[in-house]
């Protein structure tokens, strides 16, 4: 507890490029960029594979690989290979690790939509793209959002680890603290990261409420 008071009570930790607001912003910014990049790659791919049914093997392989790959090893190897100094190489492992959950959940979500529903949609004269966007995506949205949530949490955690190879953000407190035996800073950083992860979790719960149709989440009010 004392360490936490030491860390959060120190005014020096609240300003400047090494201050909490700046580090938090860095962390969020970096995570957001990584998440958006992986969405741009994984969502269309997942929709395509789920809708056409082609390339499902790719999904299974990615899903398994994603869980088995050690994040730290991947981060270290890629940064070493691509080059140290700038921060953007760190984006590569972050994006690589965020793609599988988005891809797999998008695919599963689309794939899992009731066959009758697909049938009814085509039968009423919706075209392939309309079936996908107007029926399959809204119905699969809970799973797609779940994939995004898992990916976002993964990115926040991996970005913390990536401080080890020079990335800014909240991980800096942990890594630098460990190196200099500055435990207040280490623990403070850990708490900040944990809180950020919880906020991400919460944000996605809210997003789910706003975006998913009450008819799909089955929480529409009984009487109107």
């Amino acid at each position, binding site marked *: 507890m004392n360490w936490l008071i030491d860390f959060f009570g120190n005014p020096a930790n609240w300003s400047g490029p090494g201050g909490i607001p700046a580090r938090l912003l860095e962390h969020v910014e970096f995570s957001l960029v990584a998440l958006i990049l992986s969405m741009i790659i994984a969502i269309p791919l997942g929709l395509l594979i789920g809708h056409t049914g082609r390339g499902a093997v790719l999904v299974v392989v990615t899903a398994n690989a994603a869980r088995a790959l050690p994040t730290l090893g991947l981060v270290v190897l890629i940064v070493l290979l691509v080059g140290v100094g700038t921060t953007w190489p760190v984006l590569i492992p972050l994006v690589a690790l965020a793609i599988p959950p988005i891809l797999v959940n998008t695919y599963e979500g689309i794939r899992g939509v*009731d066959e*009758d*529903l697909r*049938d*009814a*949609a*085509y*039968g*009423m*004269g*919706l*075209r392939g793209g*309309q079936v996908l966007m107007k*029926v399959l995506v*809204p*119905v699969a*949205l809970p799973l797609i959002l779940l994939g995004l949530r898992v990916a976002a949490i993964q990115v926040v955690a991996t970005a913390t680890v990536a401080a080890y190879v020079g990335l800014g953000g909240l991980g800096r407190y942990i890594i630098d603290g460990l190196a200099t035996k500055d435990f207040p800073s280490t623990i403070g950083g850990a708490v900040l990261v944990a809180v950020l992860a919880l906020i991400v979790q919460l944000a996605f719960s809210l997003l789910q409420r706003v975006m*998913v*149709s*009450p*008819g*799909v989440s*089955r929480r*529409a009010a*009984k009487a*109107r």
Partner: protein
Amino acid sequence: MITFEGVTKRYGDGTVAVDNLSLQVPTGAITVFVGPSGCGKTTSLRMINRMIDATEGRILLDDKDIRQIDPPTLRRGIGYVIQQAGLFPHRKIVDNVATVPYLLGWDKKKARARAMELLERVGLDTKLAGRYPFQLSGGQQQRVGVARALAADPPVLLMDEPFSAVDPVVRTSLQDELLRLQSELHKTIVFVTHDIDEAIKLGDTVAVLRVGGHLAQIADPSTLLAEPADDFVEGFLGKDRGIRRLSFVPAGGVAVRAERDVPGWSVVLDGDDRPLGWRAGGSTGPTDTQAAGKDGLLPFGTFDLEKDSLRAALDAALLAPSGCAIAVDGDGRFAGVVTREALDEALLRASGAAGPTGAGSHG
């Protein structure tokens, strides 16, 4: 009119779902495809809106080969109802019904107004319009499914076992509702079912298919019951064909005696001329009708002379101790009695002249 000309559906693995099917689905009537599972009835139906494309032969919709129409455009002009209703869970009922109007580019207000009108038409409370599908019972969902199929007023309606997932009571009411709707709308309806009773109840024409996708017989229900083409059709029709066929013989031809007495029994009426029951012994004069009440009366059966079938008349006779049926007019007022002899004569005529009796009234 929908015409199948030598239509065959063969899958890659060699299985033949539909084998050289040729038949005509008349405009403005209900045609039922019936048969055991694996007979290709659903495949045949789905070839009409090109959910499945035929391997050989062609299907004409009002003399136009459907393969020349782009599938989504074709489908928007054909209503489609499936077993589980297939409602979109993420859309409110009103928007589900308005799906095709929206696709056709109607403005939102007009589409919704049309949807509300259809909800009423299929017998649903318009208060349900703002609900989501999961909040409705199976029967209600199925009604929404029918409303949705009718939304853009398509001339053709395809119904793929639409009522088979609901309980018998709801099914009967949905069937009655469909017949009522059809009497107002006169759509060209193709209806698929595995239930021969449903086929006979609903169909103006019934096509019986057998496993392997062969057409075994196509006829109106009365002819089907009277003259099944072969053992398969006969077996599929089941027992009591003769009795069931009487449903298609109008009772109007039976001889009615416009008096209340038959040997040993008399009909007691209330002040409004409606039958109350049978009393043993002869009539004791017109005054007793008010006094008698229901005491000491025995059960009776009636049939509507104008609307009911010979089967209803026979049933009415079997319910009464006197063995005679009571005929009533459209308002339920006493019209006369039908003796067993008169029924015998009518039955004889019905079995002798088993040919077409005109479109029998349904229900």
